[in-house]
């Protein structure tokens, strides 16, 4: 608690973020969901962030919280009970806006048996739900939103941060596994109700271990469909990852090279499913 007031340095994969907050929601969220992550008292930090109540008359009437990046507020304030979700979005913003050292794909990624699978997600395709289910089925979580490709060795760099779940998928994951640890739900955000799944200890403890990309899977949840993999053209996969990357154009020819070697290294599939238990089985077999 006192540490969070004066500055808690949280290590998530390659990034260290100094977080200052006096809001109980942030404290509770960090306590529950980040309990396995390394924390530090001093040293170099990549990002300096604060999540605090907005002062003034709003303190008493519909209190709000604001996210600050080193003294500057990049977003508008949100209702006070969204504080932890705001911190998560803020941390994503920090990485997406600054980590151009990496190629950053808008995709989830997980690892099993030394092979990494990338799940690019169209909104509503169920990427996060599948990521959460795989995490709870023995896959090592690398990242839920931001897949980082190292420009030197072209491996995937883990973040292992909590998986963000929305609306119905929150209860789907609760009933999928009794081991699911979920943070407090934030209702009525711009994404609806949002709650975060705690990453498994193994994912967090191995967050300094990069993973070799082997598969790109485009998931699509479809009612009553049997879990089924079909080949996806590599050319299309290339265009998709390029178009959905945060900084493909910014990296210029390096972006092209990194994306091309990623696609070269990966088998690409479309994946239709309705039952998470079937889906995790099919994908586990694929990782053998």
């Amino acid at each position, binding site marked *: 608690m006192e540490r969070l007031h004066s500055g808690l340095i949280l290590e998530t994969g*390659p990034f*260290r973020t100094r977080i200052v907050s006096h809001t109980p929601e942030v404290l509770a969220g960090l306590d529950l969901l980040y309990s396995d992550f390394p924390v530090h008292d*001093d*040293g*170099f*930090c*990549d990002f*300096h962030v604060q999540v605090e109540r907005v002062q003034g008359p709003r303190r008493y009437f519909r209190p709000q919280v604001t996210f600050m990046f*080193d*003294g*500057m507020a990049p977003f508008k304030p949100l209702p006070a009970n969204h504080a932890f979700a705001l911190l998560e979005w803020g941390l994503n913003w920090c990485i997406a806006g*600054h*980590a*151009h*050292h990496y190629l950053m794909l808008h995709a989830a990624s997980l690892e099993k048996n030394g092979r990494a699978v990338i799940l690019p997600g169209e909104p509503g395709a169920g990427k996060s739900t599948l990521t959460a289910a795989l995490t709870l089925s023995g896959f090592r979580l690398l990242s839920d939103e931001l897949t980082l490709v190292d420009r030197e060795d072209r491996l995937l760099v883990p973040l292992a941060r909590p998986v963000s779940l929305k609306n119905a998928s929150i209860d789907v994951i609760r009933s999928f596994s009794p081991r699911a640890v979920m943070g407090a739900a934030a209702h009525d955000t711009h994404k609806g109700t949002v709650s975060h799944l705690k990453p498994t200890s193994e994912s967090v403890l191995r967050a300094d271990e990069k993973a070799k990309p082997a598969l790109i899977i485009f998931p699509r949840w479809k009612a009553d469909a049997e879990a089924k993999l079909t080949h996806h053209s590599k050319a299309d996969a290339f265009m998709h990852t390029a178009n959905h990357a945060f900084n493909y*154009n*910014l*990296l*210029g020819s*390096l972006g092209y090279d990194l994306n091309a070697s990623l696609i070269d290294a990966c088998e690409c599939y479309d994946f239709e499913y309705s039952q998470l238990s079937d889906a995790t089985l099919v994908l586990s077999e694929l990782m053998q």
Partner: protein
Amino acid sequence: MKLTDSPLIIALRDPGVILRFTDAEWDLIVRQGYATGLLGRLGAMMLKHGLKTQIPVPVWRHMEAMLTIAEKQRRAVLWEVSQLSRALVEVNAPVMLLKGAAYAAAELAPAAGRTFSDIDILVPKSALPEVEMHLMLSGWIAARLDPYDQRYYRQWMHELPPMTHIRRGTNLDLHHNILPETARIKTRPDLILSSAQHLAGFANIFIPCPADQVLHSATHLYHEGEWEHGLRDLSDLDCLLRAYGEDSGFWADLMARARELNLAGPLSHALSNAKAIFQTPVPDLAQHSALYQTRTIQRRMMNSLFVAGMTSAHPSLRHPGTGLAQFLLYVRSHWLRMPMHLLIPHLLHKAIAKLRIENSEIHRSAE
């Protein structure tokens, strides 16, 4: 923290000192580097001095990220310049790139690791209607402004309302002067254009001559009142002066040109501040006393006001006087920009327009 104690400034002055830096100092460097816009330049300097491997890996990642952005902008600006050159090929007038775009396109000293957001160009005032028309035909659209703002730009300012390319989204500021029409001091944009240098590879694109690059950069810094970027702009001046200053004839040219363009004031502030903050090698300032039209004490006060303004970039640099300095510099920039009989109605108009917007926002959020 005093500016001259900032690890960022110290490292920019003398790159070798980074060997002694602690984690806490690196932490401050990256934060101050992002806030001031100087992180990329420091990264470029580290590469140039072969110090990359001496930097902690997590710190280098941030510098490399900024160098990546700067490189992307360099590619983008070359593409924009080729598009501009083509769009304006029928216009019988020179098109001059200013500041960031000129540095990047001609790979001038400040370019390495520098990022920028707009492309600024200068054309003769007489060619303005023709240039504007050809730019619009090629897809540059001016921001939609109310009649008051249109008049503000077109009658009083030195540039037209900012333009954005309809497909590429790039921003272009079209200037016909480097100071507002209403400004207290008048300069001679025609002389700047007539001493222009060709940008290699383009028949109709130019950059200012070295002395004019310095004078425009100084004029921009001390007249526009963008003090959050003040340190970056002063560092640009430091880069230019170090690069050109080795040529012994440069300084005499610069002084003569400053008088010719009536820009001795901003130049004298630039030389004093650059020397004080970046230890820019400026030949004995006393020799240039002819530049100064004001008394020593007044000049010193102004220079410390500018330094205080530059501390607004990052919380670690701010001191109790920063807020007051920001306010005074804001007032100063308006005072320089237009005479009182125009300024007071203009500020009133802006204040009322702001109130109206706030009221309508409150109204909307209540609904």
